[in-house]
C-alpha cells in the first residue's frame, strides 16, 4: 500500500521536520492519481455484468462493441458522477474542518447534506420539479441555510467539536423527520425519491453529470483559492489580519464553497455521510496541515474512497447492490469512533 509507505517515509526520524521529503512531494500526487485511475477502471468493470479491462476499453471507444451500452450509457456516467461528488464531499470536509478547527466536521454529520435533501424533497413534492437543473437550486438554498444555522447554533467562532456535533445531530433529526413526513403524505414523491434519500450513484445519467460539473468546478476553484487565507486564519485572528488575509471574507467564501460543493453533490446522489470526514484525516496524516497540499489531495482521494465504496457495494450484493451511502456509513462510522477515542478533547 503506497499510502502507508508514504506515511512511513514521513515519520522517519531522520526526515527533516516541517519540510516534506522530495520523494513524497513528487511521488505522492502521482500515487494518488494512480489509485484514482485504478478505482475508475474498477468502477467501469464491476457490476451485474463483469467486464475485462480490454472489454472496458472497447466499450469506451468502439460503438459496435458488445459492452458499449453498459459502459457508455450506465457505468461511465455513474463513475464520472462518483468522481465529481466524491471530490466535492472531500473538499467540503477539508474546508469545514479547517474553518471550524474541528476534527469531527463532516457535511453529513453536521446536517448540511440533510438540509439540501429536505429542500430537494420539498421541490419535488410541492413544486413538482423533477429535473436536476430545477432542484439543484433548492439544494443550494437548503445547504446554505443549514450551514449558517449549524454554525450559529454551534457557537460560531467559539464552537467546540461536541457542540457542533450536537447541533448537527439535531438539525439532521429535524430534517429527516420533515423528509419522512413529506414522503408519508405524498406517496408519489416517495416512489420518486426513495432511491435518493439513502445516498446512491445508481441513478446517474449523462445529464446529471453535466448538470453538476459547473458547480463542482466553481466550488473546487474557490476552495483552492481559499487554501492560503485559511492557512493564515489557522494562526488566529490577529495573525491572519497581519498577514493580509481578511477573516470575514474568508469565512463567507468558505461557507459559499461548502454550500456549492455539498449542494451539488447532494442534489445529484443524495445525502452521503463520512466521506468528508475520513478523507481529510487520512490526507492530513500524509501532508500535514497545509491546506495548499491537503485540499488537492482530498480532491484526488475522496473520489477514490467514494468510488471504492460504490464498487464494494456492487460486488457485495451482486446481482443487486448496496447503496454507496450505506457502505460509507458502515465503513466510515468506526473511523469516526476511532477519532473520538483518540481525541484529547474528549477526555476533558
Amino acid at each position, binding site marked *: 500500500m503506497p499510502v502507508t509507505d508514504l506515511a512511513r517515509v514521513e515519520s522517519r526520524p531522520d526526515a527533516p521536520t516541517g519540510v516534506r521529503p522530495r520523494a513524497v512531494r513528487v511521488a505522492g500526487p502521482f500515487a494518488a492519481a494512480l489509485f484514482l485511475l485504478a478505482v475508475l477502471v474498477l468502477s467501469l468493470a464491476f457490476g451485474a455484468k463483469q467486464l475485462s479491462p480490454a472489454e472496458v476499453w472497447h466499450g469506451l471507444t468502439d460503438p459496435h462493441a458488445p459492452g458499449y451500452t453498459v459502459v457508455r450509457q450506465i457505468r461511465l456516467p455513474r463513475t464520472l458522477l462518483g468522481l465529481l461528488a466524491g471530490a466535492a464531499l472531500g473538499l467540503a470536509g477539508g474546508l469545514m474542518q479547517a474553518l471550524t478547527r474541528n476534527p469531527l466536521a463532516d457535511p453529513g454529520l453536521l446536517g448540511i447534506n440533510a438540509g439540501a435533501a429536505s429542500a430537494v424533497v420539498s421541490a419535488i413534492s410541492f413544486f413538482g420539479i423533477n429535473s436536476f437543473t430545477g432542484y439543484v437550486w433548492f439544494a443550494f438554498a437548503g445547504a446554505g441555510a443549514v450551514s449558517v444555522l449549524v454554525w450559529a447554533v454551534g*457557537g460560531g467562532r467559539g464552537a467546540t467539536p461536541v*457542540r457542533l456535533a*450536537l447541533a448537527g445531530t*439535531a438539525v439532521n433529526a429535524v430534517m429527516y*423527520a420533515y423528509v*419522512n413526513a413529506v414522503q408519508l403524505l405524498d406517496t408519489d414523491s416517495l416512489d420518486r425519491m426513495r432511491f435518493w434519500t439513502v445516498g446512491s450513484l445508481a441513478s446517474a445519467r449523462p445529464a446529471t453529470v453535466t448538470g453538476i460539473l459547473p458547480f463542482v468546478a466553481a466550488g473546487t476553484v474557490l476552495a483552492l483559492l481559499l487554501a492560503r487565507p485559511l492557512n493564515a486564519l489557522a494562526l488566529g485572528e490577529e495573525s491572519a489580519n497581519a498577514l493580509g488575509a481578511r477573516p470575514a471574507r474568508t469565512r463567507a467564501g468558505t461557507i459559499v464553497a461548502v454550500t456549492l460543493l455539498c449542494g451539488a453533490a447532494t442534489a445529484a446522489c443524495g445525502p452521503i*455521510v463520512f466521506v468528508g470526514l475520513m478523507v481529510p484525516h487520512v490526507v492530513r496524516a500524509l501532508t500535514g496541515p497545509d491546506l495548499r497540499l491537503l485540499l488537492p489531495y482530498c480532491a484526488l482521494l475522496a473520489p477514490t474512497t467514494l468510488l471504492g465504496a460504490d464498487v464494494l457495494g456492487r460486488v457485495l450484493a451482486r446481482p443487486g447492490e448496496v447503496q454507496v*451511502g450505506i457502505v460509507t456509513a458502515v465503513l466510515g462510522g468506526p473511523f469516526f469512533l476511532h477519532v473520538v477515542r483518540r481525541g484529547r478533547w474528549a477526555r476533558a
Partner: protein
Amino acid sequence: MILRTPGGWSVRVRTRALAVGALCLLAALVFAVVAIGSGDYPMSPAAVVRTLAGYGSAADAFIVEQVRLPRVLTALLTGAALGLSGALFQSLVRNPLGSPDLLGFTQGAAAGALVTVVAGGGSVALMGGAVAGGVATGVLIYALSWRQGVHGYRLVLIGIGVAAILTGVNGYLLTRADIPDATRAVLWLTGSLNGRGWNDVVPLLVAVTVTVPPVVLGGGRGLRMLEMGDETAYALGVRVERLRLMLLAAAVLLASFAAGAAGPVSFVALTAPQLARRLTADPGPNLVASLCMGAALLTGADLAGQRIIPGHQLPVGVLTGVLGGGYLLWLLATQRRRGRI
C-alpha cells in the same frame, strides 16, 4: 414539606414536584380520553368515561376496548417509559443532551427489530428483537466509551457515531426486506402507534411495572447524590458502581421496550425531563415528573398527529421529531449563552 409519622419516620415531599407530576398526569389522562373519543365514530368524553367504567353500550364498549384503548395505553406507557429513561440517562451522563435517541440506543433497538422483520418474524419477535438490539447497543457504547471511567462527552460522541453507523445498517436491512415487510418497517421506523393491539400493550406494561417502582423508589435518592460526583456519593453511603449499572440497565430496558412497542419515537426522552425540570424548578433527577410529562407529551403528540392534517394520519414520530428537534436547537442556543453545554 416534611411528613413525620409517630414512629419516627420522616419523608421529604417536594410539593411543587408532586403538583407538576399530578398536572402532567391529568393532562395525559385528558388527552387519552379525547383520543379515545375521536375518530370516525365520535364519542363524547362523558360517554368515554362511562364506557371505561363499564357502563357503556355494547358498540361503545367494542370500539373502546378493542380498537382505541390499546393504542392510547401504548401511547401512555411508551411516553412514560421514554420520559423516565431520558431522565435517568441525562442524570447519569450529567449532560442535558444525553437522551437515548441521540446516543444511538434507539437506533440499536430499531436495528434489532429490522433484523426480525427481514427474517419474517411477527409482532412478538419484533419486540424481542428491539429489546435485544437496544441492550446490545447499550453494552457496545458503554464498552467503547470506557477509558478509566465513562465520561459524559465521550459517551455522547461515541453514541452519535454509533447512531450514524446503525442508521446505515438500518438502511441496508430495509433494502433486504420484501416489499410488504419494507413498507411495514418504514412506518415502524418513523415511530407510529397505528393499529396497536393488546399484544403490544402487555409486554410494555410488564416492563414498566417491573422497572419503574424500584427505580423511582430505590434509585431516586442515590441518583441525587450521584450527581454530586462519585466520591461524594460514595462517602454518603451510595454503592456507586452497583447503582449506576442498575439504573443504566433499567434506562436501556425502558427505551428498548418503548421502541419495541411504538418504534423509535424521537425526542420525547430528550424533551420530557427538560420540560419537567423547568416546571418543577428542581435540579434533581425529577423522575416522577419526567415520567408523567413523557406520557402527556406522547399522548398529546399522537392526538395532534391524527387531527393536524384532515384526512391524513401523521405518525407520532414525525410530530415529535419536528417539534423536539426545534426544541433541541433552542436549548442548544440558550444553554450556550449561559455557558452550560
